[in-house]
């Protein structure tokens, strides 16, 4: 039940977060859990081949403070379309959905994939447009409140250099947000390594 807060705000307190736990997949990534999928699942396909824009793949790993791969991570992604517009009306039958979920399967060595298109540049309210990026949310056992981060692209050096958002990230940590393009294969592939903790720790955001 909702109760007025005692935290100095005349508001109801937000429901507090709890970890998604080890079995998040049965709820949000059924195939990984070994459950039969429903007619439509929110999966790693943010855009189908029919979507306008440059088709890309993102392949990532999440690494904990011991250097071990977090193989039970659940990643959610939210991105703009090729024009830099967020398409908020989520429909299963759309070529571009904007939102997706991914999690490593049993034999993926902790790697997860997203199939999408490269997003366009999104306006920044007080400055020049931001460089292309994908917003990620990370959920897992041991993560009490999900972590927000972004993925930028290393072949957008010029846009990255001009990005008002990236400019505010300490220079020495900026590269933790930048995915590396890999050559070979039909679809351009970008690799992301997210470090939850330690010397190469990824930048996480509060907003």
């Amino acid at each position: 039940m909702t109760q007025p807060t005692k935290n100095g705000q005349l508001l109801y307190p937000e429901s507090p977060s709890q970890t998604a736990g080890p079995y998040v997949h049965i709820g949000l990534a059924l195939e990984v859990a070994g459950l039969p999928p429903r007619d439509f699942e929110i999966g790693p396909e943010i855009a189908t081949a029919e979507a306008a824009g440059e088709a890309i793949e993102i392949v990532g790993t999440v690494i904990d403070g011991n250097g071990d791969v977090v193989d039970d991570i659940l990643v959610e992604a939210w991105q703009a379309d090729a024009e830099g517009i967020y398409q908020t009306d989520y429909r299963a039958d759309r070529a571009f959905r904007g939102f997706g979920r991914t999690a490593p399967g049993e034999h993926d060595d902790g790697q997860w994939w997203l199939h999408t298109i490269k997003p366009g540049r999104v306006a920044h309210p007080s400055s020049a447009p931001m460089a292309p990026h994908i917003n990620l949310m990370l959920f897992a056992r041991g993560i009490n409140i999900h972590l927000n981060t972004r993925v930028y692209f290393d072949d957008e050096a010029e846009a990255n250099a001009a990005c008002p958002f990236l400019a505010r990230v300490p220079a020495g940590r900026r590269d933790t947000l930048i995915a590396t393009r890999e050559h070979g294969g039909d679809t351009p592939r970008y690799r992301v390594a997210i470090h939850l903790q330690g010397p190469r720790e990824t930048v996480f955001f509060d907003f």
Partner: protein
Amino acid sequence: MAQNDRTAFVMRDRGWHPPAYAPAYKTSVARSPQQALMSLQTPTASELTGPDFDHFALGPVDNDLLLNFRPGTDRDGLPIGERIIVYGRVVDQYNKPVAGTLVEIWQANAGGRYRHKKDAYMAPLDPNFGGVGRTVTDADGWYRFRTIRPGPYPWPNDVNSWRPAHIHVSVMGPSISTRLITQLYFEGDPLIPMCPIVNTLDDPEAVDTLVARLDKAGSRPMDSLAYRFDIVTRGALQTYFENQG
């Protein structure tokens, strides 16, 4: 609703939420950032928008866990356990209903066993229970599931840790700023105050907001008991005085 990137959201009270590092919950030790989160002073459309699920095609029993795991005729039947309705309202911090938002749940069966490849607990699976549900809130923010009450289960944290009975609850809200995953606990469960995951929350009032109440008025006589669980997402307000100097 999610279209409007002129909305601002009430800032998250991260002293009310659990901290990243909560050593009594051991897995958090290596999975918590050591650097401070970087606070965005100017949220952008990236944070202020999110997927709107008003037109997401759901199956007819996606919110009915008593019926939505019956893969074969030879296994037709109902799951074993306490039949319950779990329902409530999703509102924001201003008590405005959050309509058309996706609410997803997942849970163990009556014996505390999850239908997940990695759950090897000796309590058996229930052939008629999957443990996953989803729905979209109605115009007034209401959601409803039918399920069985999950059992507690042991987990390797302390030498004898048991989770209270719980249902994982995921809600999107109008933007990725409001995205939230939490857990629903049941009124009166003595395991609640012993649980290191529950105790990642410092404030007993915060725990209290995660405890679903027995709601006899919402129950169905000779059929199912009901538990009421309201969810509060971050308050949304318009940005009235931006860029004035």
